[in-house]
C-alpha cells in the first residue's frame, strides 16, 4: 500500500512537472493566426525564414532580406546586378510549393529555419501542404494571403510573425499610399474613358491573360480594361492563346508585353502595324529587373508596376515622376540607391513613353 502510495505521488509529481514544462514551453511560444486561419506557434526570436515559393522569396527579400535562408530559384545575369550583393549570393534552396516542388524536406531541416513562409494563394492545396510539412518536420509554417489589395496587411502580418512590426511600418504605409493613389486615379477617370489594353506574352505575343487572370490583375487597379475579358472569353482567369485576327478585332489602345522578342516583332510586322496601339506608338515593354514589374512573379514586386502602368496609360500626368518613384521604391523595398546607369538599365528602351520605337 505504502509502495503504491509512493508510486502514485511520484506519478502525480511527474505529471505536474511535465505540465509545468509544457506550460513554460507554451508561454515562450507565441501563437499567431495566419491568413488561412491556421494556428502557428513560434518559439523565440525568428532568425531565419525559409520561403516556400518564389513569391514568398521576393516578399521576404523586400521586407527582411537578412532573414532569408536562400532563394527558391537562383537570381540570374542582370538580375544579380540589381540585388544587394550579399543577398544575391544566398544559396538556392528550391521551393516547397507548386508544380515541380524541388525542395527536399531534409534540405529544409538542414537549413534550420525558425519559420517557413508562404505568400500567395490560400487554396486548399497550399493549406494542406503547410499542415503536412509542419506536422512532419515540426517547423512553424505560415501562409500569408498574397492578394494584391492585401499587400499592406500582408506586410503587417509578416512584421508580427518575425517580431518587426514597427520596422516594417513605413513599407506598409508606402504600399497603402500607392494603392490609395491608384484608387484616386480610378475614381477620377471619366466613365467610358478607361484605356483598353492588350497584354501579349510569348515571342509572338499571342498568349494573354484572359478574364480575371492574375497575370493581368494590375490593369483593373490602374483603371484599364483588359480586352481579353468579357464576351466569349470566359470569366475564369488563366493564360490562353489568341489569334492575331482576334487581337485586330479588339484593336486595343495600348499593348503591353514582357517579351523583348515580341516588342521587336510588333514594329516589323504588317498586321500588328494596322493596330491603333502600334500606329500611335503605344506599345510598352515591362521592366523586369530585378523582379518583374507587371505580371510575374505574382508578389509585392508588382507594386512598382502600378506606377509604371500610370506612366504608360496616362503619360501626360504620370510619366515625368516615374524615375523619382522608381528610385524611391527601390530604396525602400530593394535596399538599393539606384545609380543613373542602373536606373537606365531598369527603365530601358521601350519601357515608357518617349523611350520607345514607333514606325
Amino acid at each position, binding site marked *: 500500500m505504502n509502495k503504491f502510495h509512493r508510486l502514485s505521488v511520484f506519478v502525480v509529481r511527474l505529471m505536474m512537472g511535465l505540465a509545468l514544462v509544457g506550460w513554460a514551453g507554451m508561454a515562450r511560444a507565441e501563437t499567431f493566426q495566419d491568413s488561412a486561419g491556421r494556428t502557428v506557434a513560434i518559439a523565440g526570436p525568428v532568425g531565419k525564414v525559409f520561403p516556400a515559393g518564389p513569391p514568398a522569396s521576393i516578399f521576404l527579400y523586400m521586407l527582411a532580406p537578412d532573414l532569408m535562408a536562400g532563394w527558391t530559384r537562383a537570381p540570374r545575369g542582370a538580375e544579380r546586378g540589381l540585388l544587394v550583393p550579399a543577398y544575391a549570393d544566398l544559396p538556392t534552396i528550391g521551393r516547397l510549393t507548386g508544380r515541380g516542388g524541388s525542395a527536399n524536406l531534409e534540405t529544409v531541416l538542414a537549413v534550420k529555419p525558425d519559420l517557413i513562409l508562404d505568400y500567395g494563394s490560400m487554396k486548399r492545396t497550399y493549406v494542406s501542404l503547410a499542415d503536412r510539412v509542419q506536422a512532419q518536420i515540426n517547423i512553424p509554417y505560415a501562409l500569408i494571403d498574397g492578394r494584391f489589395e492585401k499587400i499592406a496587411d500582408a506586410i503587417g502580418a509578416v512584421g508580427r510573425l518575425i517580431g518587426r512590426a514597427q520596422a516594417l511600418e513605413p513599407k506598409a504605409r508606402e504600399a497603402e499610399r500607392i494603392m490609395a493613389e491608384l484608387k484616386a486615379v480610378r475614381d477620377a477617370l471619366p466613365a467610358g474613358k478607361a484605356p483598353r489594353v492588350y497584354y501579349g*506574352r510569348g515571342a509572338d505575343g*499571342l498568349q494573354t491573360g484572359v478574364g480575371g487572370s492574375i497575370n493581368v490583375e494590375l490593369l483593373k487597379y490602374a483603371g484599364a480594361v483588359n480586352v481579353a475579358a468579357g464576351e466569349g472569353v*470566359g470569366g475564369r482567369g488563366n493564360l490562353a492563346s489568341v489569334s492575331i485576327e*482576334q487581337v*485586330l478585332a479588339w484593336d486595343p489602345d495600348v499593348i503591353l508585353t514582357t517579351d523583348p*522578342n515580341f516588342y521587336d516583332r510588333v514594329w516589323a510586322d504588317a498586321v500588328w502595324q494596322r493596330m491603333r496601339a502600334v500606329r500611335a506608338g503605344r506599345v510598352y515593354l515591362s521592366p523586369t529587373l530585378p523582379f518583374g514589374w507587371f505580371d*510575374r512573379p505574382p508578389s509585392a514586386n508588382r507594386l512598382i508596376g502600378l506606377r509604371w502602368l500610370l506612366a504608360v496609360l496616362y503619360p501626360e500626368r504620370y510619366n515625368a515622376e516615374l524615375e523619382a518613384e522608381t528610385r524611391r521604391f527601390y530604396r525602400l523595398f530593394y535596399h538599393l540607391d539606384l545609380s543613373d546607369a542602373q536606373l537606365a538599365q531598369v527603365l530601358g528602351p521601350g519601357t515608357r513613353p518617349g523611350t520607345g520605337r514607333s514606325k
Partner: protein
Amino acid sequence: MRLAGIPWFAAGLAGLFVLFCLAAATGQYPLSVGDVLGALWQGISGARGDDAAATVVLDIRLPRLAAALLVGLALAASGATYQTVFRNPLVAPDILGVSAGAGLGAVFAIFLSLPVAMIQAFAFVFGLGAVAIVYGMAKVVRGAHEPILVLVLAGVVIGAVMGAGISALTYLADPYDQLPAITFWLMGSLAGVTYDDLMAAWPAVALGLLPLAALRWRVNLMALSEDEARALGVDTARLRVGLVVAATLMTSSVVAISGTVGWVGLIIPHMARFIVGPEFSRLLPATVLIGAAYVLAVDTLARSLVAVEIPIGILNAFIGAPLFLWVLARARRSWS
C-alpha cells in the same frame, strides 16, 4: 475502278475548295461575305487597298489556311508512308523521334528566350537531328536483328531521351514566363502563322512529297518481304531510306511552324485506307486530300469557336476520335 480514279480525286479537290472558301469567310474579325470576296479580289487583281478586310483576309486568314492545308497534307502523307514502310498500322510520323526532337528544339529555343523564327529553326533542325541519330544508332546495332525492328526500337529510345530533355528544360524554365510558352508550343497551334513561315516550310514539304508521288507505284512493294521484293529487282533497303527521309523532311518542316500536332499522321491514313484501299498510288492522294481537309476544318474551329484559341492538340482528339470510330464502323474495305 481505275477509270473511276480521277473523278473521286476531282470531287475531293472540289470539296476541299468549298471548305477553303467557308474557312476563309470564318473568323473572329467581323467581316461580311462581301468584304471577304472584295478582299480576295484585291489579292487576285493585285490592286491592294489599305482596308482592314484586306489585312484580315490576305495577311491573316490566307496564310493560316494555307498553313493548315500544308500541315495536314504533310503529316497525313508522311503517316501513310511510315505505315507502309514499317508494315505497321500503329506507326505515326513521330515513331522515329521527329516530334520529340522538334519539341526539344523548340523548348530549348524558348528556354533561351529566342525569337519566333529561331524557335522554328531549332524545331526543324532538332527534329531532323533526332531521326538522324535514330538512323545512325540503328545502323550501328543492326547486326543480326530485323532492321525495321531495330529502327523502331531506336526511335522509341531516342524519343524517350528527347522527352526527358523536354522535361528537364521545363523543370529549369522560369515558371511564370517560359513554362506557359513551352506548354502552348507543345499543344500545337497555327495562331501566329505568317507568309514568312509558309515560305520557309513549303519547299521542304514539296521536296518530301515529290519523291513519294514519283515512287508511288514502287512503295507498294514495301508490303512484300525483302526477299520477295528483291526477286522483283527492287532494293527495298535503299527505297526505305529514301521514303523515310522524304517523310521525315515533311513532318519536321510542318511541326516547326505548327508545334506538336499529334494524331493526324496516325489516323488520317487509316481513314483514307477505308475509303480507297491500301494501294499506295491511290492511298497517297486520298490521304493528302483528307489530311489537308481535316486540319483545315479543325483549325477553323480552333480559331472561331470562342474568342481564345483552342489548342489543336485538344480539338484534334475530341473531333478525331468520334470521326474515326464512325469511319471505322462504316468501312467497307479492309485494312490491307
